[in-house]
């Protein structure tokens, strides 16, 4: 008895936009190379029915000051490299970063607020230390973000940085900075398809082309809202492939920041024995969060721990092996 099985394939009509980060000397910047993400015509890694012309990439997070509030697991793994932002950026490049993600702290160790001049100087130092494209993210307070990111945009004019977070509260300033100095924006919305679309529309209304917009759906770490992010990314990606032009942006997920903020990746004492070893647990927390989001549509995964970085790289390559 012969059975014929016809594999059902989705006939998607939409394509994710290609977005290129960084500019080389020929293009008005100083980057040694550029990185292009997006271009997918199907859901992640389903090569039997579509294409994924650019593999998802890994951004490694660095900061403008020693991250004393980080999990000891991270501090031990990175060691002295964390003392200096430029050294940190070089180490990140050695570890195989595709992108450097500079996460600006709002204040120094003594509580003095970071100034625009300091932020600009840090970005210059990072540009000098690495040839990789750079994402610059503010401390997440709308007013301070505006001040720092405008200074950064000007100081790094023409480099095609991605500036974030560009939210509904402050998108005008950030988009204006990106328009004036040839950068991209990271459009960030709180785990909601319609809010993500609306922000993209507002950004488009200011005449920033969507080829210069990355989408941050807001990352929830494993155990802390991962399922919301996972589902909103699937919904955004399905909407994009179905042809909704305002959802067709590549997605960036700040995985490291979220997974290493949680009790599970920070605490070794006073927790149940069943949680196991803190180092292994923390790294696994980041790997599981990253893998789940990779499979729901992430184009850029921003990570922290050297071991998760190498595991996620291997995972991308395993998934790409057709």
């Amino acid at each position, binding site marked *: 008895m*012969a*059975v014929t*099985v016809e*594999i059902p394939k989705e006939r998607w009509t939409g394509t994710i936009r290609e977005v290129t980060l960084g500019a080389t000397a020929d293009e008005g910047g100083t980057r040694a190379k550029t990185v292009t993400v997006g271009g997918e015509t199907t859901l992640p890694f389903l090569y039997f029915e579509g294409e994924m012309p650019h593999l998802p990439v890994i951004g490694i997070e660095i900061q403008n000051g020693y991250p004393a509030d980080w999990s000891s697991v991270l501090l031990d793994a990175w060691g002295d490299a964390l003392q200096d932002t430029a050294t940190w950026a070089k180490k990140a490049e050695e570890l195989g970063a595709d992108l450097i993600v500079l996460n600006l702290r709002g204040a120094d160790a003594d509580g003095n607020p970071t100034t625009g001049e300091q932020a600009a100087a840090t970005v210059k130092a990072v540009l000098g230390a690495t040839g990789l494209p750079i994402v610059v993210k503010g401390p997440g307070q709308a007013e301070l973000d505006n001040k720092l990111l405008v200074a950064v945009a000007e100081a790094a004019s023409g480099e095609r940085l991605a500036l974030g977070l560009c939210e509904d509260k402050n998108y005008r300033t950030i988009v204006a900075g990106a328009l004036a100095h040839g950068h991209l924006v990271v459009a960030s919305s709180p785990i909601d398809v319609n809010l993500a679309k609306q922000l993209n529309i507002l950004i488009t209304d200011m005449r920033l082309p969507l080829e210069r917009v990355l989408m941050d759906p807001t990352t929830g770490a494993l*155990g802390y809202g*991962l399922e919301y992010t996972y*589902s909103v990314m699937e919904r955004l990606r399905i909407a994009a492939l179905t042809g909704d032009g305002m959802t067709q942006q590549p997605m960036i997920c700040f995985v490291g920041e979220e997974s290493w903020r949680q009790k599970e990746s920070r605490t070794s004492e006073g927790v149940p024995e069943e949680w196991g070893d803190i180092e292994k647990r923390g790294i696994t927390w980041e*790997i599981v969060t990253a893998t*789940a989001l990779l499979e729901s549509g992430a184009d850029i995964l921003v990570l922290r721990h050297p071991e998760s970085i190498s595991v996620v790289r*291997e995972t991308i390559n395993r998934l790409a092996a057709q």
Partner: protein
Amino acid sequence: MAMSGLQIYKLLPKTNCKDCGFPTCLAFAMKLAAKQVELSDCPHVSDEATEALSAAAAPPIRLVKVGTGDHEFQVGNETVMYRHEKTFFNQPGLALRVKDTEDAGTIASKVEMVNDYCVERVGIDMGFNAIAIENASGDAGTFAGTVEVVRAKTDLPFVLIADQADALEAALGKEGGHQPVIYAATTDNWESMAAIAKEAKGSLVVRSQDGFEELAELTDKLKGAGVENLVLDPGSRDLATSLSQVTQLRRLALKKNFRPLGYPIIAFPGEAADSAEAEIVAATQYIAKYAGIIVMDRFDPAVAYPLLTLRLNIYTDPQKPISVDPGIYEFNSPTPDSPMLVTTNFSLTYFSVAGELDGGGMPSWLLICDAEGMSVLTAWAAGKFDAETIAKAAKTFGAGDKVAHKKITLPGHVAVLSGELEEELPGWEILVGPREAVDIPAYLKAW
């Protein structure tokens, strides 16, 4: 595939006899399509119609039960490709594999570890569900001996893995009747495997390395032989091919209603993994993407806890966040002088705060408001956690009877509610606490 009312109507007697309690056969058919009545309410329906209708009503992915008693779990019966479309229903069972070539001490310690492992999250106990035992020695007696030793240590169900029917037969004699999973029927051995599976009242894995056609032919043959509780092993082990295969199998079952492949899937994340991390990644993929039973080759609490958390996350009903009952909760025997804090009934919020209150050792009260199971910021944004809600909860649960000081502490994220809450709760002082639960002990020390 569900039938429409009209399709059902064509199978009914069309006599409008009203014996079912409805005025016409069409009205009854419509109620049937909406699953509001049972076909047996019609006394005149033909056997052919019953068969056609029950076949149509069968779930597109068969429900398979494994284990007995407290350790029974069920897999399959899924209805959607993406969890946002409805929800994923039956969490995949996780198993740890031991081999009958490992020394007795290793096997014993692995089995004990899994058997005793139980970790709590948001009030839910999580653990592994089964032990897989592989006949790596090739010897039936050794296999049966191992199964007997493991059974003496645990009541968890087994996944019994062997190539030879006689080894499985010997092992099943020692298995103890706990609805095992038998691995695996292939084109070469399916007849003897069918006989064994029927005898053991377990489920049977069907394996093919040669594509879905062979797999579908095998399940048809086994169904013909009377074995219906089947589990699929589509053969692939590498991450990329597996992802495509499980996606295709789910689509065939749900979108094409292709019965021969409408069964749960078993996966072995350790088999293509050259490191513990590679196995974690594959297990993550299988939990998110469509596996029903996942057989791991390594066990480490620091890995089990994140994977079990992922399973809980992915299988949470998007329409019904896990929540706790509203009310006033006590920590460390509070008195009328102890602080009172307030937050929402989203279970993760509750357990994060409760963990800090409990662990901090300070006596305290916690008022939980009904915010429809949303976290503080989400509930606030949705208008489910406002001054009115908090005031109502404080009155309903008698916050004023619990504390003499009439002070209540808001989560830092909703400091903006202070003014309104003062109006809603006259005579109360509204304090603003930290934004994150982790900072609560420090806050309470200064309270």
